[in-house]
């Protein structure tokens, strides 16, 4: 082959290697991408359009954001959701990791299997069903743990759902229904840590606590960040729990407790879809900022 011909062939080969080619990975993610576009990006674009326009479709700038932020219910709802998120994320992280480490240290294989199953069972209840279950648990007149409920929160359901108790109650409900799956995931992540590393730590004189704090938890950092991002996204959208407790308490807990409820009221009580979309975008911005912070600090996508 002549030199120019070889060069041309080489050039074609090089361009082929740089060109995009479908791979198995693309097939695997295609379903997710389609659903993400249909149920994530398109509704978000729709909400953005509504948030920056008025009822007549004219550009409204930040008017919807200003108006909703001045609503007397807005700051209260921000406070409620913020308090709940702080409690929920901290307790979730601490307790999930503690329980996962505990299960991981158990010697007997059967006890590990049983505990993993037990942790996972509450998560099998769908969101609304688990809240309904907790409505019975929290009503002292019908609760199987009425002694505990009366001691902690009060002797009537109205006393139990007092405003100061609600962030704790929602945290307990969320932990009960959501933590089991994360414990199982963290247990799997702990299993992925090479045995040689743990053995080296033991040889160096590290006890169980030091091994957990200095070896295992740092190696779980990305998993923890992943858990926090998804839990944050779910937590900012607090809706079902206060909505059902509002009904069960005959309105003593208002229907405007959380930001998502407020957005719902704007849309379907006040017929103000633009204001509703503005609140939804507020939530999106906060969740994006927090997720970005977690990703940056947690190195979720760093290649080792």
């Amino acid at each position, binding site marked *: 082959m002549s030199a120019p011909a070889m060069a041309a062939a080489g050039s074609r080969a090089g361009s082929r290697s740089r060109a995009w080619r479908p791979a198995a990975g693309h097939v695997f993610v295609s379903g997710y991408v389609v659903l993400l576009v249909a149920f994530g990006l398109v509704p978000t674009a729709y909400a953005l359009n509504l948030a920056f326009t008025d009822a007549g479709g004219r550009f409204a700038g930040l008017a919807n954001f200003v108006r909703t932020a001045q609503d007397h219910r807005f700051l209260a709802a921000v406070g409620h959701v913020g308090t709940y998120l702080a409690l929920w994320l901290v307790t979730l992280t601490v307790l999930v990791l503690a329980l996962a480490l505990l299960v991981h240290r158990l010697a007997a294989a059967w006890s590990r299997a049983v505990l993993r199953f037990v942790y996972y069972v509450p998560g099998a209840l769908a969101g609304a069903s688990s809240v309904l279950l907790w409505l019975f648990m929290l009503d002292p007149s019908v609760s199987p743990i009425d002694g505990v409920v009366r001691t902690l929160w009060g002797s009537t359901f*109205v006393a139990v759902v007092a405003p100061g108790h609600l962030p704790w109650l929602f945290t307990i409900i969320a932990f009960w229904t959501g933590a089991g799956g994360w414990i199982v995931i963290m247990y799997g992540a702990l299993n992925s840590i090479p045995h040689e590393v743990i053995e080296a730590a033991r040889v160096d004189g590290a006890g169980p606590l030091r091994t957990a704090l200095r070896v295992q938890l740092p190696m779980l950092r990305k998993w923890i960040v992943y858990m926090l991002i998804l839990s944050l996204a779910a937590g900012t959208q607090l809706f079902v729990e206060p909505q059902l407790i509002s009904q069960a308490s005959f309105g003593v807990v208002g229907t405007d407790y959380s930001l998502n409820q407020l957005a719902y009221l704007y849309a379907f009580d006040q017929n103000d879809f633009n204001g509703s979309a503005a609140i939804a975008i507020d939530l999106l911005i906060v969740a994006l900022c927090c997720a970005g912070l977690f990703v940056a600090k947690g190195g979720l996508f760093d290649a080792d």
Partner: protein
Amino acid sequence: MRRRSPAILITAVLFTVAACGPPNPAGTERPGTATPASDSASSSKYGFAPAPQEDGKLVVWVDSTRLDAAKAYQAAHPGAQLDIVTYDGNANGSNSLKTKVQLFNRAGEGWPDVVFTTDNNTASWASQGSGAFVAPLDKGLIDRNTLSGFAKGALDVCTVDGTVYCLRNDLAQVVLWYNKKLLDEFGYEVPATWEEYQALGERVAAEHPGYLVGTAGDAWAPEIYMWGAQCPANQVTAAKAITVKATDPACVRAAKLIDKLVANKTMSLLPLFGPDFAKNQGDKVLMLPGPAWYGGAVFQGALKTPKGTLAVGDALHWADQSPPVTGNVGGGAWWVSRHSARLEAARDFVTWVTTADAYQVDKSPGYPAYSPAAAKWIAKQQDSGYYAGDIAAPITAAADQVWPGWGSPEFSQEAVWAKTVIPAQTAGKTVESLLPEWQTAIEQQAQVLGYQVAG
């Protein structure tokens, strides 16, 4: 060495976006494009422009109590095609009908043909403007003779600008329910005024601790005590104007009455329909000021009060009230959708359930708003042998004593009270001390919905 992928930010965004869908429906219709509420279609026999009429199932929304009405209609009309849907009936200010209708307006479809509500707020938000949902009934849809058969003032709660939008199911005038057997045993007289009632409450606390003369744990407590005291906290002066004076002396004295009896434990703060009340206090009820429907729903239903013990006294009033007035708790209403494609069937249904003896006399737990049925209902209750003494006279008299100064705005006063007063009361605060907060809460709720508020 660590390498930061350029996909980090994109992926972080996708993560969050995937979890953060906006709470918007799929509909894209803008407000104002739903079926217009213009009644200019005077050529229509209904007085408004109806949707194209066609055969099909009549979609009826009822609360659990009115399920009997729909079933009774079905039994009496075996050929009728009904799709009966049970919902909460807007009880306790849940606002569920409004939220659903706003969604249907957005989607341009989905409205039920007939709806029952336990509250009287629907006309204020559903009869006007581009998103109007309820059909005018006195422009040709409902027979004049039928409309004239309802008790005086019964349809006022759903009359806007002279047009009637509902058929009232029952009246809910407040009277005094009492346990005659216990009262005789304790040697007490039936009180006639709120002053006598409070004095009796103080005696009961001292002489028979544990027994109750009332409850204030429900969202409708202000409709019993504040409404009956002529408290001017809810004066709707125009379609979008309300005057709120919750710290008026009339409200203060009603608040003091509640506080005094709650403090001496003769007034319960448990909700009447909660599991606690029936279980722990149901047999301790000496008397309860409450609406006409308490007899069936509360005493016969929830509390299972034995036959021959329950009696009714005249509605309590304050000594200086002339003429004496009383409050009102609900008294449901039936509404027809202006979007219905089965208006004839809807007309037949609402006419039957509000006027037919087969439901209103035989099955209804409350005092019928339709006068001919009311006379038979009260006679039937009297003849049942359940009640001790004459219940017809006090309930019938109270029907004409409901104070007209308590309005029906777009929002629920029950929801405002439940959220603002009840939790604070449970925490030990007095209603009197909460009146300014109640005032603020009403004002804020009114302003949210675009009302002009005067204090």
